[in-house]
């Protein structure tokens, strides 16, 4: 690993180098991810796709610094995440990562604005500025008229937009989304994917998403296909991608499509 890469401008925002992740569940050892290497440049909208148990969420957790690899190296925004302690990782996530989950996971006793302002509690910003930034983030996702509403009074789509605003509010380098459309109807799913695309287009954010949703192909720049903990390459990857297109998706917007992207490290659209 070169020093220039580790600190580097002009280097990918995310780089995984022969990463594996296994853990024990009872007496069994589960190999969730095997020898995975990839690079994602800054400002891309990328999807990890594959069947349940393929290792997508594990990969997402590693990229977002929620989990640490059992082997290999994870570099994000010039930081080798392996060497950070649990608390250092938490601080790093607060600065660099915005997270979106399938079930929104908003705090039901807080208003939309307070939910969005939650990550800013970890900063030194005064209360008024935290509130102001939260309102701006809500405006970006089109919910400026719902700032004082409780999550219970919001629709699923609106709750997911609040969650997106929460991910955006601390102006992170990277936004990661775990099945963001999994609990939404078709209209809201499209709107959410459009919003994530907008974060990439208008704010230059790098967005990494795990999804089963074939509609995502129309919004992302690049797709990585996984199966049984392995990043697919070559023919296997091509077949997986074709199956996805047949299921209702379309080729990703960027030149080269998904298939070339889902190859070995450094290859992408």
């Amino acid at each position, binding site marked *: 690993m070169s020093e220039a890469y580790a600190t580097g401008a002009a280097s990918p925002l995310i780089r995984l180098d022969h990463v594996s992740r296994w853990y024990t569940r009872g007496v069994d050892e589960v190999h969730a991810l095997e020898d995975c290497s990839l690079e994602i440049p800054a400002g891309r909208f990328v999807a990890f796709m594959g069947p349940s148990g393929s290792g997508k969420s594990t990969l997402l957790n590693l990229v977002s610094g929620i989990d640490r690899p059992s082997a290999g190296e994870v570099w994000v925004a010039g930081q080798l995440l392996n060497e950070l302690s649990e*608390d250092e990782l*938490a*601080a790093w996530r607060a600065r660099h990562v915005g997270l979106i*989950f399938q*079930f929104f996971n908003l*705090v039901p006793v807080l208003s939309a604005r307070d939910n969005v302002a939650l*990550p800013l509690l*970890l900063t030194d910003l005064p209360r008024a500025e935290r509130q102001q930034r939260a309102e701006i983030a809500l405006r970006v996702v089109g919910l400026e008229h719902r700032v004082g509403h409780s999550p219970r009074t919001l629709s699923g789509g609106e709750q997911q937009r609040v969650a997106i605003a929460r991910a955006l509010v601390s102006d992170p380098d990277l936004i990661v989304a*775990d099945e963001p459309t999994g609990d939404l109807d078709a209209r809201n799913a499209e709107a959410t994917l459009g919003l994530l695309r907008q974060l990439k287009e208008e704010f230059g954010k790098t967005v990494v998403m795990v999804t089963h949703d074939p509609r995502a192909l129309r919004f992302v720049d690049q797709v990585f296909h996984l199966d049984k903990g392995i990043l697919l390459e070559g023919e296997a990857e091509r077949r997986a991608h074709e199956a996805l297109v047949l299921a209702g998706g379309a080729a990703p917007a960027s030149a080269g499509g998904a298939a070339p992207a889902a190859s070995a490290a450094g290859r992408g659209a």
Partner: protein
Amino acid sequence: MSYLGLVLANLRRNRLRSLLTGGAIALAVLLVCILLTMPAGLDALLSRLSNNTRISVVNKAGLVYSMPYAFARKIRALPGVEDAVGQVWFGGAFEDDGKVTFPNFAVEVDHIETVYPDYGISPQGLADFRRYRDGMIVGRETMKKYGWKLGDRVTLRSTVWPANLDLRIVAEIPNDRSPIAWINREYLDQALKAKGRSLGILGIVWVKVTDPKEVNSVMLRIQELTRNSEAETSTQTEKSFFSAFFGSLEGFVTILMVVTVLVSLCIVFIAGNTASMAVRERAGEIAVLKAIGFRRGSIFSMLIAETVMLSFTAGAAGVGLARLLTELLRNAAAGSPQLGPLGGFIVNQAVVVQGLLLSLAIGVVAGVVPAFGAARKPVAQTLREVF
């Protein structure tokens, strides 16, 4: 929104549960505070009843055993003794009650004034007590109980001696909480002699010491005086005497304190269970907070702050209620001889501090395990379990 706002919002999340848990804590703290007033209340009661220069002398074998009458005279002659009054249990029952409903003793009338200067008995009453052999001094509580007044004549039938004495009330002990009555020892002695008996014994001698510093040496001298006699004696200060008399009550208080500690422990477990449930229900949210960058220390602090805040607020309410209750009791006791002694049980500053510390401890102990568990668990593992 701030950290405090987040903690308060979480407390409002399930209002009924917070209210019920807080109510249980408040009730437990109230109970503990009231019980904590008991040792100090009893002490105050004993202090009011007793005098620090008065000591009692009884037969070493026990209060029911007698001593020779001559002991009183010998004790009076000891250095450091201002005066001493010998008393014997008369055990008089009023009218047809058949039972002794108030303590009454035959006493040496000439020594009452010096031994009990703090009782506030009127000089005229004391003079009449010396003048009339059938005179009787009665505590105000008994006076009120039977509706007696000065000059009334009453007959007491002894349950111990073969004597029914006609007595006239010549003085009152002006203390609402005093039930005792004193009669003239010579009067009883004459009544017994008329029936061929004699009163040559004492049940107790109350000794007035000249100087509080002399109390211990006088007690030693009295014990030395009666050593190897037919009735060796035991001496103690008036406060110790009443303390021993109320010993069974103190034992009861000890039991109550033990029960209170157990109740407090139960409350800790209940509050702990509530905190665990709350943490379990919010596992997803806590995982998300950790995922977006909240450190383990912050998560731990927020969760422990919730239980401490609930417990402390509820405990403070319990302390306030206990104080209010004892104040009401004290006010009620001021006008009621029956409730009188209860007026001494006050939730003072020390009890307030102890009650608040207990509330704090309940919050910390109840919250520490679930908060630590939630904070310690790696975020990836929590997310895997929850989602």
